Structures are given as structure tokens and as C-alpha cells.
């Protein structure tokens, strides 16, 4: 296991060799790796690397013929490093003599001891670039920054706040440290935590750094000074002044409202205000994404396919904001005057104790406390730092504002309605203050009454006395600390009604009745044999309880008994017709896997959104197995898919074994959504195959073993051998064993020698060779974990419309976030969703290298005309399934390891770049044929005119939504983020002719039409938008 990766970007062998040698001498490398990012370096460096490798030095080289630029080189190194901690060293560093490992301990130990330290390094300074002080806010200046010539950063920090900003050249250290600060991290100079003001290279850290001499030599002093100036200007503009961030959560079908809101903000905000707008689009329609993408220069946006709820959306925006003051604005608010910013923010500058302002401050009658309504409110960043973000328990919204205002006031901050000294006029239909805003909202347009009431109760509970935890003094078939922890967990949660499945003698029923303010609906089959195993806490004899533990107790009136079979459809419907929605379901009935699963699924829709389901006897133990208790199997499946909590008491009370019982609780936001659970698919037959080429001695044996070692045994295995010199595998010393295992466990197998015309031919052939309807395709550099096929079969069997399902396909040393992944055909530049891990499953529009599919869904076959490489073959193959109406699914919690082999075997043996280019062309043509005709716009004009055309591009895209838009441009950089195809003017003339170029020339058009209006309108008229 690699703990530390030492990343050293270099363009200069003469510098990096002494640097690496000093690292080797001064470091124990057992749990470390050295990653050299050689970009534009002399090839003789490869000899040094070979020498180090021969001496067993764990060195990895990322080789690029040309210089990447400093920051991309850093990022390449970090992304390819596998250590838990990344140490970045400039190549002009020498680790000085000191005890071995001293330097690395200085860097790493603080990070291990404190998870909130985001970076360590030997040199902490006030932000300065060359001789340029950067005028930052006092807090930012005092925070300082670590110079990144030597710095250690945990990998998890990159995962949280992202990589280095490639817009910068040298100021990434200042920028990254300020981003760390905004994410709540600290930074630490090591070994001493004092700020070094003068000579930076004479601290106690054992290091020598050539510093500016190196960059002066490389860039020249003049060029280096320009770089410093440029980065200083960027840092100044980002962090240099007090900023205001406006966070607008956007949800649903909101395009019109959102546009009005943003236009009103832009129109009414003086341009001298240094502000940023952040739209947090969650669960919005696709036309909103279109709008956001096309206005990326006016505001930042964060996109989430699914709704986050208002509190989480706001929190997400706050976390990515930079402003010292954060304004929260609803998507349907319209600003009516240009004094609004001043009104909201002036109180912060006048009085440092003001923490929050807003256009309306009311009293919440439920808790008799102030409430600044968050449809338009401003919050000082320090307040968020001190009291935390909005409480996301108030999903999807409502009452989080009261909660937040209370927390702000309780922390000693003032909250103010602005403009001050104006009174609200309140009528039945509206409230009017003195603030220039128009906002109409009916809560129940976007929140159900159940959720509204739930959140109200949550607020009341939060600011009301907590429910008392009681120690049951009656017989109870539960463990003492489990029921105490269970009560503790729910003590602040407002519970009206509970549904209990499995009552037996009613010990738990009585406890639940103490927890519920209204009713406990208790179901039992009432046909138990005498096998009472209660943990009798007070040694009381059951006989005194006259059958049920709660009879004659003070909670008996709350309990409603239902006697019948919880698996009977009629009984289920009867119960549902008699009960109200419940806040908690406690399942302790049929303990078989199928039984507890049926109880869970059959009664799930009785739960309120955001309610909880508790399961008893969740422990996976021999003690449970011998008495046929199999709740643990269901519990393991569910806890991956929901927020889950376990309460387990391992004490042995004498009346039952210590490894028994256990309570598991899950929270369910959407009870209408049934999770994917196991079913008995053991009889489902699967044909698996691998198409291989020249990987006999690398990954192929592992790939085959992975396929045949599945918990769901495959019926048939076919190996397509496309190797240049096929071996006799049946008699091969390694493979003969593998085939022997297959024979022993009953897997039919065949080897088909490929035609060596590329992998696609083999994939196509499998469609006819497979003898089963389900085909599992695995690459020869894949290793599926043993549970992959079982899960894929369960998913594909759960819905006859699922055509294919893939597992996560992970390269072990590369991490990608699921939220950054693309799922549509237009997001191919993003990481594939299969390259990420996540809980549960998601629907996608195409799949990556390995997946299980129905033969029936593959009747269209594989794409033709591809090169032997077969680049994008699976994208086209699976997307055609999608277009034919089949669902495609990625299951994110089972992993196939992708043992990527760049230089040995597989399609990488084809080194001719033209194959890839050819296939990309085939792909583009295929995509165009599936979707759109070309529509070309020729911009034979200046960059300013390009920018004017950019303004009407959204309308062009809207009008020609069904066309493939091609821009012929002189300045492609103007449109490089627009996601449109660009060609040169020359190519446009070649394709469409000189006549078309002249017809589309905007100046000739304006001349022809005696134009007197704006050029943008001329473009619009010419193109009819």
C-alpha cells in the first residue's frame, strides 16, 4: 500500500536527477512512490529512471515529449499518484542531510493527526508574488500561504476541493491555500509554525531550494515577471476585495422565473459591486441547463440532475462561493430597484455584530422566535463558519430559515430586517416591507403537506424539550443498550405514528407507544409457539402480564392491534385502509430473507417521506443462522442504498447469545421508490466471454479467473483469441489449470480463434455464438469482484426493459467523482459514470467496457466500418440499445477492476494514430446520422463580431435544436466552451462554397440592407432568430 507519493514535475534532467537522488538517500521508500512528470525533458532522463528501477527504487515516470506548463504537469502528477498523501517537490530542490525520513515526517505527521489540516510545507508567507504584495482581506492575508516548492496535501483534499487551477502559472499555491481556507481547512508550516517574513530558505526544514534562479533561467527574467504580473492580477481580481456572492437555488420547471430573477439582479446591481452569482440548479428541466450553459460568463452554475432540496442547494452554493457576504435569493424573486444590495449589506459594514439581514423578518408562532425569510437574505460568511450551514434535515425546505435565524441569534449575532425602521404591512394574501422586491410563493406548489408538517414538527421538536429516554421495566425481547441507543437516536424526532410488524408479547410495542405521540399500529400473526426468549430486564414473570405486556399500562390506549398474516395481500390492504401514514416502521416479524423483504416492500408506502424503517435482528452471526434468522442479508443490501444506522449491544445477558439481535435503522426520503434487492436468480443462465489479444502473460489469466469465480456461476465461457500467434491454451501450463477448474465446477467453455480483424468482429460473433439470452462481456484487462455478476443479474432481472447493466469499472489508482461524470452522449469529454463508485444504481445513455446485456436488446448488432481498434464501439452498441427503448443501468457499488495495460496487448498494439482518428470520424457520422443534419454558420469577421454572434448563439441553438451546428470561425477560442463543432473558414469555403461565405458575411449583409441598428441584431435578423 502506497502511503506517500512524491510528485516531481520537471523539464530539466540536470535539476531533477540530484533532486531524486537526494530523496532516495534521505527517505525510506518502502511505502512510498516517486512520480516524475517529465515534460519536455531530455530523453537521457529515461536512462536515469531505468537505473533507479533496476535498483528497486519505486519510481514512476509520466513522459510527455513537450512541456505541459507547470500547473498541468502538477495536475497530471497528482492524478496519477496513488498515495494517501501527495508530496509535491520542485525539481530544483535538494533534501539536505538530516536523519533519514525526517523531512517526510515533518510533512506527513501533522496531516495524519489532524484531518482539518489541508496542507503542510516548510515555508509559510504572507501572500506575495515576486516583489508584489497582493492586497487581500486581513483574514486571507493572515492565513498566509505555503510555497508549493515543497508541500504535502492529502489526496482526499483534492477530491474535495479539486485540483490546481490551470488558468494560473505560478500563483497556484496562493490560490489553492485560499481555497483550502474557504473549505474550512488550515495550513501548517513545518516543523515550526511561525510565519517566516524574511529569508525563506533558512528555516529548520532540511531542504535547499534554488528558487528564482531556476525560473529565471528557464523563462528569462522578463517573461517570468510577466507571469508574476498576470497571476497577481488574477489573484487580485479573485480575492482582492470584499466580494458579494449571490446564491440562487433553482429547482423544477423554472426557466422563466430564473431568467427574470437573474436579469433583475444584473439590471439592479451597480457595476462597481464586485459580486459573483452562483446558480445551484437541482432537479431542473433540461432547458434550464441550456440557459445556464449559454450564460456561463454571467454567473457560475452547479448542476445536479436530482433535486437537492432548498437547504442543501443553498449549502452547496455557499460552499462554492467566495464572498464575504452571501446573499440567498429565491429563483422566483424579482429585484425592483438598484438600492437592494446596499440595503442588504450596509448593516454589515456599520456594525460588526450584524450577522444576517433580510427583506422580511417575522416571528414564527410555532416556536415564538424570529425568522429572517431566506427568499432574500444576506449572511456574513463568518456566521456560516460559526453556526454552520442550513440544517438539511429540513428537506426539501420550509422552516430551515427559522432554524437558521434562531441559531444565528443564539450565537450572539444581530439579525436585521432591511430597510431598517420600516414596518411590514401584512394582509391575508401578502406581506409588504420596504424592500424593492417582488416575490410570490405558495409553499404547496413545491412541497407536500406531509413534508411541510414534518418540517414544522422537526422545528418544534428541535426547540422543545426532548423526549424522555426510559429504561423498560417490563419483559422485552431486546437488548438493553440497543433499545437505549434506539431511543437516543429518535429523541429529537417528532413521531406521531408507528407501524410495528411482529408484536409477539408486546414488549417492544409498549416501548414504541412511549415514543409515539399518537398511535402504534401493531401487526402480528398471533400464532406463536411458546418459545419466549425475552431478555427479562427485571426478572419479572410473564404470567403477571395477562398475555400482552402493555395491557393495563399507561400507553395501552395508543396501541391498535391488527391480527393477521403480513404477507397476505387482503390483510395488507385492510391494514393500509385503517391507518394513517407513519413516521417509523419497526419490522420484527418473519425473519427469513424473503419474509422480511416482503414486509419491508409491502408496507413501505405507509411511511411519510423522510421517515425511518427499523429492522430487528440484523446481526450476521452463526447464532442467527442456526435459528433461520436472515435479516442480515436484507440489511446489507439496504444499508448501501440509504442513510443507515446500527445499534448493536454485544453483551451477553444470559438469556441469549451475545452475537444476536441488533437494530438497524434507515431513513427513506422517497417511500414510493422501491430499491433493487436480491431475488432468487440462481437459475438464470449467463454466457460470458472475453475477446483477447496478446495478453497471455499479463491480465488474461486474472480476467478469466474473475469471470469463473463469481457467486452467480456462469453457464458458458467463450474466449475469442485474436492474438497474432495464438497459443495452444488447452495444453498451456497456466491456462490448462483454469480450464480444469471450469470443468470441475461445471462451466462449459470454448476457445474461438479470431480472424485478427479487430475486436468488434469478435463481439459481433458472440451475438450468434452465445447459447444463453444473457451475455456478459468482460475485457481481457478486467477483473470482476466475485459479487459483480450476481448483482448485475439481479438488476437486469428486476425489469424486463433493462437491456444492459454495467458495474463500476475502476482503474485502481485513478479517482473520479460520480457527480462529475457524464451519462449522455454529449458528455463524452467527462469521466464515464462507470469509472466512479457510488451507492445504488443509475440510468445512463451508454455503457463502457464491461456489461451484462440481453441478446434480444442487441439485435441491431455492433457498428460496422470501424478500424481494428474499435474505438467507441461499445458506446455506439449500447447507445443503439438506448435509442431502441431499452434501459441502460450502471450499478455503482460492485466493482470490476480495470487493470489498464497501455503498452501490452489489447487494442493498444495498434499504434497507428490514424485508426483512432478514423473511428472517431465513424462515430461522429454515426452520431450525426442518429440525430442531426449539419447547419453551418460562417463567421468571416473580427473577434469582436464573433463575440456579438456568441450572444445570439443560444437562440441559434434553440432554433436549430434538431441540427448539428457547425461554426466556421477565425477565432475558435471564442466558442471553445460552447460545445459546438468548429471548422476553419477555408474548410467552410471548400465545403459550402465562396458564395455561401459571402452570403453570410455580416458586413456585406449590413451593407446590402443599409443597416443602422446594432450588429448583434443584424446577426439575429440574418439568421432569423
Amino acid at each position: 500500500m502506497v502511503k506517500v507519493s512524491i510528485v516531481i514535475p520537471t523539464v530539466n534532467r540536470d535539476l531533477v536527477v540530484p533532486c531524486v537522488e537526494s530523496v532516495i538517500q534521505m527517505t525510506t521508500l518502502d511505502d512510498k512512490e516517486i512520480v516524475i512528470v517529465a515534460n519536455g525533458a531530455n530523453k537521457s532522463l529515461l536512462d536515469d529512471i531505468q537505473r533507479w528501477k533496476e535498483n528497486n527504487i519505486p519510481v514512476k515516470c509520466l513522459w510527455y515529449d513537450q512541456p505541459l506548463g507547470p500547473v498541468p504537469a502538477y495536475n497530471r502528477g497528482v492524478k496519477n499518484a496513488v498515495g494517501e498523501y501527495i508530496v509535491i517537490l520542485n525539481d530544483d530542490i535538494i533534501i539536505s542531510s538530516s536523519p533519514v525520513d525526517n523531512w517526510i515526517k515533518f510533512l506527513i505527521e501533522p496531516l495524519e493527526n489532524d484531518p482539518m489540516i489541508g496542507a503542510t510545507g516548510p515555508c509559510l508567507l504572507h501572500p506575495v508574488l515576486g516583489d508584489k504584495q497582493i492586497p487581500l482581506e486581513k483574514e486571507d492575508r493572515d492565513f498566509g500561504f505555503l510555497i508549493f516548492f515543497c508541500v504535502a496535501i492529502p489526496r482526499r483534499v483534492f477530491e474535495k476541493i479539486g485540483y490546481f487551477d490551470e488558468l494560473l502559472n505560478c500563483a497556484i499555491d496562493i490560490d489553492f491555500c485560499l481555497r483550502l481556507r474557504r473549505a474550512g481547512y488550515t495550513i501548517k508550516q513545518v516543523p515550526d509554525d511561525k510565519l517566516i517574513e524574511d529569508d525563506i530558505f533558512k528555516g529548520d526544514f532540511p531542504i535547499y531550494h534554488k528558487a528564482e534562479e531556476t525560473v529565471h533561467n528557464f523563462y528569462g527574467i522578463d517573461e517570468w515577471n510577466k507571469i508574476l504580473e498576470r497571476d497577481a492580477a488574477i489573484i487580485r481580481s479573485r480575492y482582492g476585495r470584499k466580494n458579494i456572492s449571490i446564491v440562487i437555488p433553482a429547482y423544477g420547471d423554472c426557466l422563466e422565473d430564473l431568467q427574470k430573477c437573474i436579469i433583475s439582479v444584473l439590471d439592479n446591481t451597480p457595476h462597481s459591486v464586485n459580486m459573483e452569482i452562483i446558480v445551484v440548479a437541482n432537479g431542473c428541466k433540461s432547458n434550464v441547463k441550456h440557459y445556464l450553459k449559454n450564460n456561463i460568463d454571467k454567473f457560475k452554475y452547479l448542476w445536479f440532475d436530482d433535486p437537492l432540496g432548498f437547504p442543501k442547494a443553498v449549502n452547496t452554493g455557499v460552499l462554492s462561493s467566495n464572498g464575504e457576504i452571501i446573499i440567498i435569493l429565491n429563483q422566483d424573486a424579482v429585484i425592483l430597484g438598484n438600492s437592494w444590495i446596499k440595503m442588504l449589506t450596509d448593516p454589515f459594514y456599520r456594525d460588526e455584530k450584524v450577522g444576517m439581514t433580510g427583506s422580511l423578518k417575522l416571528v414564527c408562532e410555532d416556536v415564538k422566535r424570529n425568522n429572517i425569510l431566506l427568499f432574500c437574505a444576506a449572511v456574513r460568511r463568518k456566521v456560516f463558519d460559526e453556526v454552520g450551514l442550513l440544517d438539511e434535515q429540513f428537506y426539501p425546505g420550509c422552516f430551515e430559515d427559522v432554524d437558521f435565524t434562531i441559531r444565528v441569534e443564539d450565537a450572539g449575532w444581530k439579525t436585521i430586517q432591511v430597510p431598517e425602521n420600516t414596518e411590514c404591512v401584512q394582509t391575508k394574501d401578502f406581506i409588504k416591507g420596504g424592500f424593492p422586491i417582488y416575490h410570490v410563493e405558495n409553499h404547496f406548489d413545491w412541497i407536500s403537506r406531509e413534508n411541510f408538517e414534518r418540517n414544522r414538527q422537526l422545528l418544534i421538536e428541535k426547540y422543545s424539550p426532548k423526549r424522555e429516554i426510559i429504561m423498560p421495566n417490563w419483559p422485552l425481547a431486546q437488548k438493553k443498550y440497543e433499545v437505549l441507543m434506539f431511543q437516543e437516536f429518535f429523541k429529537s424526532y417528532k413521531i406521531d405514528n408507528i407501524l410495528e410488524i411482529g408484536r409477539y408479547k408486546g414488549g417492544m410495542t409498549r416501548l414504541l407507544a412511549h415514543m409515539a405521540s399518537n398511535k402504534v399500529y401493531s401487526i402480528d400473526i398471533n400464532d406463536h409457539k411458546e418459545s419466549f426468549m425475552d431478555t427479562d430486564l427485571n426478572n419479572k414473570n410473564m404470567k403477571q402480564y395477562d398475555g400482552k405486556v402493555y395491557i393495563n399500562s399507561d400507553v395501552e390506549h395508543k396501541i391498535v392491534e391488527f391480527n393477521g398474516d403480513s404477507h397476505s395481500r387482503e390483510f395488507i390492504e385492510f391494514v393500509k385502509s385503517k391507518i394513517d401514514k407513519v413516521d417509523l416502521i419497526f419490522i420484527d416479524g418473519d425473519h427469513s430473507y424473503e419474509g422480511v423483504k416482503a414486509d419491508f416492500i409491502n408496507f413501505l408506502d405507509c411511511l411519510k417521506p423522510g421517515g425511518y424503517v427499523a429492522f430487528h435482528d440484523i446481526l450476521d452471526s452463526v447464532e442467527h443462522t442456526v435459528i433461520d434468522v436472515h435479516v442480515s442479508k436484507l440489511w446489507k443490501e439496504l444499508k448501501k442504498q440509504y442513510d443507515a444506522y446500527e445499534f448493536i449491544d454485544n453483551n451477553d445477558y444470559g438469556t441469549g447469545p451475545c452475537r444476536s439481535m441488533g437494530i438497524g435503522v434507515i431513513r427513506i426520503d422517497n417511500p414510493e421508490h422501491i430499491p433493487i434487492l436480491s431475488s432468487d436468480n440462481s437459475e438464470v443462465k449467463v454466457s460470458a466471454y472475453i475477446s483477447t489479444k496478446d495478453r497471455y502473460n499479463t491480465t488474461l489469466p486474472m480476467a478469466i479467473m474473475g469471470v469463473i469465480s463469481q457467486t452467480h456461476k456462469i453457464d458458458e465461457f467463450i474466449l475469442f483469441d485474436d492474438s497474432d500467434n495464438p497459443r495452444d491454451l488447452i495444453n498451456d501450463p497456466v491456462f490448462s489449470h483454469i480450464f480444469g477448474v471450469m470443468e470441475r465446477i461445471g462451466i462449459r467453455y470454448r476457445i474461438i480463434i479470431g480472424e485478427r480483424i479487430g475486436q468488434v468482429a469478435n463481439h459481433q460473433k458472440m451475438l450468434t455464438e452465445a447459447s444463453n439470452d444473457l451475455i456478459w462481456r468482460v475485457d481481457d484487462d478486467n477483473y470482476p469482484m466475485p459479487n459483480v455478476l450476481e448483482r448485475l443479474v439481479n438488476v437486469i432481472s428486476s425489469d424486463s426493459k433493462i437491456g444492459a447493466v454495467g458495474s463500476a469499472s475502476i482503474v485502481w489508482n485513478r479517482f473520479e467523482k460520480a457527480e462529475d461524470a457524464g451519462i449522455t452522449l454529449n458528455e463524452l469529454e467527462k469521466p464515464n459514470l462507470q469509472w466512479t463508485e457510488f451507492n445504488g444504481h443509475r440510468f445512463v445513455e451508454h455503457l463502457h467496457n464491461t456489461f451484462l446485456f440481453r441478446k434480444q436488446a442487441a439485435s441491431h448488432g455492433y457498428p460496422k466500418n470501424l478500424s481494428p481498434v474499435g474505438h467507441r464501439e461499445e458506446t455506439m452498441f449500447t447507445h443503439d440499445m438506448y435509442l431502441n427503448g431499452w434501459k441502460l443501468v450502471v450499478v455503482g457499488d460492485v466493482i470490476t477492476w480495470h487493470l489498464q495495460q497501455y503498452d501490452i496487448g489489447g487494442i493498444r498494439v495498434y499504434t497507428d494514430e490514424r485508426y483512432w482518428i478514423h473511428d472517431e470520424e465513424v462515430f461522429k457520422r454515426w452520431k450525426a446520422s442518429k440525430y442531426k443534419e449539419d447547419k453551418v454558420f460562417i463567421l468571416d469577421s473580427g473577434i469582436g463580431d464573433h463575440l456579438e454572434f456568441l450572444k445570439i448563439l443560444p437562440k441559434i441553438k434553440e432554433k436549430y435544436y434538431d441540427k448539428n451546428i457547425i461554426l466556421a470561425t477565425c477565432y475558435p477560442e471564442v466558442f471553445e466552451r460552447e460545445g459546438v463543432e468548429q471548422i476553419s473558414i477555408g474548410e467552410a469555403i471548400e465545403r459550402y462554397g465562396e458564395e455561401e461565405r459571402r452570403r453570410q458575411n455580416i458586413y456585406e449583409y449590413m451593407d446590402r440592407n443599409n443597416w443602422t441598428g446594432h450588429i448583434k441584431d443584424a446577426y439575429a435578423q440574418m439568421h432569423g432568430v
Partner: protein
Amino acid sequence: MIIISPYSKPTISDNKPSPKNYPYWPELIKIIREKMPEQYILQVGVSGETDLGCDCFLQNLPLEVLKTLIKGCDIWISVDNFFHHLASIIGKRGIVIFSLSDPLIFGDPNNINILKDRKYLRADQFNFWDNVQPNNDAFVEPEIIFETISECLR
């Protein structure tokens, strides 16, 4: 921070300075320096353009960097060149000094487009700029530009 983008591209055929260039930049910068000493002045442009002696002169910046700078500045001033089109994409208002080209056609109405007099506009707004003679009389005085800056920052 004030950003100035002082020059337009030279004419195509003879590579002469563009007639759209404002002739009084040194005077304007001097006034800003005197009356707003706290302001940091950043000049942006391309290689070969005259360095006007501002606090910083950055050349050949990518559009994305320019956008970042524009977003963070207090005000920007340019002649009729690509810069004001870029700023208007972002929605950051600024001052554009016109002379011979027509702001009604080429200016963004959200900006403050300063034109001394329409009588100086060239007759053919859509032809190339080759052979168009510069005319210093067509530009407003630097004091007027400064007043506009002051008004914007007030």
C-alpha cells in the same frame, strides 16, 4: 482596479495604427493617477502595443483570463475594439471611447459609449479601415472621460 484596453488592431493592408485608437491615453492615465491614487491601473493588449506605463501591462492573455480580470475590476475603459464586446458578454459595464465608428451599430447599449459628435462618423461603416485617416478632433477630451469614470465609481 481599472482595466484599460487602449488599442484596436492595425489596418490589414498597410499595418498602420487603427484610426479608432484614442490619442490621449497618457493624459487620461495621468489624471487618474493624480485624482485616484489608490486605483491600480492594468493595461491589457497584444504584443507590439505601446506600454502606457500603468501599474501593469499584460499582453496576449487568453479570453478566459481576460474574463476573470474583467469580472474583478471596478471599471474598464476601451476604444472600439474586441474588448468591449467581451465585457458585454460577461455583463460587466464599462466605458467605450468611439470616434469614427457608430456606437449604435457596434456599441453595447449597456455600456457608456462616448462619442464626441456623429458628424465625425465615417460614411461607410461597413467597409475596411484601410485608407481611413485618423482624426484626433473626433475624440472627446480626457477630462470628460475621467468625469465619466468618477461618476461610475461614485
